[in-house]
């Protein structure tokens, strides 16, 4: 019965779900093994980064980096250009590797302007 | 007729439609008021023409609780006289077994138990005349069951008509009933 209650929470719309998926006790677990896709379910993965991608001048807005990003942290802005969410970007470098015009560069965190 | 359950065995060759016959017989008997019935085909990797077995058990007053083969048949339907040459089939015939044989000639009773009751019907001829045929030969189940209904009284032509209509459809009814009636009327006891 307690499980049914737990389910009611999970079955709600995306917005009404609990933001943190953290269970302390097996009795709190949902009956079936699922995970709920929510923003940053693994924490602030931006902390993992040692190199950071920078989009250079001359990007042709093809969107390949946006498609390849395994973490979905590249966002398309209204003017069609792209921006990388540095809170969650873990610096894997796949966007730089895939960019057909080499307009994404990986720079050391220590060289980053934000520091 | 052990335990009040009537046990019938079917000996035939693959393609002679004996498995369907065992099932239809169960349906006819149940329709007539037998309270429990079971049709048991012995299924292997069948080949057309190979000797095959099927059994039907019907009970007037108590549930049938067995799935095993019939070893002491009260009745035995033999779809082809050539099957009598097979020792395994001949050996399964008991003194009390009543035989119904599809045959166009006199039956050699040398190797059969003495004083056994035998009925004979030429189901093959009936099928050929009505053109009730499959690629493998005549569809013998309906005429054999027509004759069996006559000699046992377990069911009548009316019941056969209802079930055949239900199972095979209106279209196939006239031809099937024709052969059933012919067999019903032509089955006769053989003096051994």
């Amino acid at each position, binding site marked *: *019965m307690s*499980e*049914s209650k737990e*389910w009611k929470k*999970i*079955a*709600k*719309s*995306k917005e009404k*779900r609990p933001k943190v998926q953290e*269970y302390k006790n*097996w009795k709190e*677990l*949902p*009956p*079936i*093994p*699922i*995970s*709920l*896709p929510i923003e940053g379910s693994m924490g602030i993965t931006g902390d993992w980064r040692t190199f950071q991608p920078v989009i250079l001048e001359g990007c042709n807005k093809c969107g390949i980096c946006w498609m390849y990003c395994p973490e979905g942290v590249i966002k398309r802005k209204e003017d069609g250009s792209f921006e990388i969410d540095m809170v969650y970007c873990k610096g894997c470098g796949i966007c730089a590797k895939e960019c057909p015009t080499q307009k994404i560069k990986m720079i050391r965190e220590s060289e980053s302007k934000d520091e | 007729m052990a335990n009040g359950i009537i046990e019938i065995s079917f000996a035939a060759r693959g393609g002679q439609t004996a498995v369907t016959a065992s*099932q239809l017989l*169960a*349906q006819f008997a*149940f329709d007539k008021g037998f309270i*429990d*019935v*079971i*049709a*048991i*085909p012995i*299924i292997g990797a069948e080949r057309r023409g190979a000797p095959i077995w099927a059994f039907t058990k019907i009970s007037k007053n108590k549930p*049938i*609780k*067995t*799935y*095993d*083969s019939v*070893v002491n048949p009260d009745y035995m339907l033999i779809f082809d006289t050539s099957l009598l040459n097979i020792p395994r089939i001949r050996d399964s015939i008991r003194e009390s077994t009543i035989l119904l044989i599809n045959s166009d000639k006199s039956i050699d009773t040398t190797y059969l138990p003495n004083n056994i009751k035998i009925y004979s019907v030429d189901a093959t001829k009936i099928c050929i005349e009505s053109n009730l045929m499959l690629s493998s030969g005549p569809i013998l189940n309906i005429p054999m069951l027509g004759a069996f209904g006559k000699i046992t009284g377990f069911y009548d032509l009316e019941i056969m008509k209802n079930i055949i209509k239900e199972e095979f459809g209106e279209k196939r009814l006239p031809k099937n009933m024709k052969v059933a009636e012919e067999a019903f009327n032509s089955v006769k006891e053989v003096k051994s």
Partner: protein
Amino acid sequence: MSKAKEFVQKKETKIIKGNVAAAYAAKSARVQVISAYPITPQTTVVEKLSEFVDGGLMPGTQYIRVESEHSVMASVIGASIAGTRTFTATSGQGLFYMNEMIHWAAGTRLPIVTTIASRGAAPPWNIWADFSDVINARDTGWMSAFCATHQEIYDEILMSYKVCEDHDVLLPKFVAYGGFILSHTSKPVILEDQDLVDQYLPPLPDEKGWPQIFIDPDRPMMHGNLIMPSGFYSEFRMKIQDTLMKSKEKIKVATKEFEKIFGRSYGNGLVEEYHMDDADVGIIIYGDLALQMEQAIDDLREEGYKVGMTKLRHYRPFPTEDIIEVAKKVEVLGVMDRGTAFGSPTGGPVSSDVLASLYNTGITTKILPMMAGIGGREVNVEQQKEEIKTLIKMKETGELPDNLIHGTLWDGILEVK
């Protein structure tokens, strides 16, 4: 389609094969997705269902033909997650090929019902009654039930949906019956009124899916993801065991409710006793052999022997408590298996479990593990009476029979005398 709407099952008795009874049960349960791949002796289950679907007798039901059993279960899993009542059937080698997906179905906690027309495992090639196939799927988290009669196949499938779809259970279930012995023989089966079946079964999931499991872009959910050893993997496995053990109560309730509505009883759902109360000697037996054993018990009772039997209806969850009670009632208890568990303490799956159930209970009942009917070998009533007489002799002499093979009596073994 208009024809389909007119067609509603009324209560009637039909002389049908066990496989056809299974197909009618799926129809009565209004299953929404059927996935099918043929394998002897199950094939006529899905053939009959394809006739129903094609003839418009199952409006709205999707019938999927796939290229293998692995895909059968994969597609049924997809359909079940999407929120539909699903059904399929398989046998022997087909079930083995399905095995990876069997684990997925239970791990994802999907209420899938699958019938098994059981057959022996190859090689040597064998297509006849032997429960080794469903035994092989024992440790997957599926419930499994054995049927002894044609009517029980129909009834058990309906009861299975009731139990599986219970919000506190959510596990799949096998409904197994002997290949050919039940699948291809014909007996009278009562098909129930559709209204009554609808009343008995839980409502079908609505278009949003089950309340617990769904595919809905507005409420995204990820299935089957990776859990690290430090994560809750172990706990999710423990929950399957916990749920299975608790499902015994649900099975009992579903069986009782079934009896109330349809008037047919199956013991307490887990086991069904027959003349056990005053018996000195008893046997635990399952599947089609159980019905025939009733006849053997009837015959022996007429001869004056105080013998009884217990039909094991559910193998998983194993009815430990009931088995203990059964063992208390008799001095000698045989356990008859039709299926092998190689290398286990007795060689038989159920007899090993019975022995395990009785450990630490202080029960001194003598147990004789037995095997018969492997690979569809015919077992007749006379042989079953002899089996019981072996147990009676064991009680009288206090000694085990001397022809045991590693502690187990393999009955009906061909031997040159």
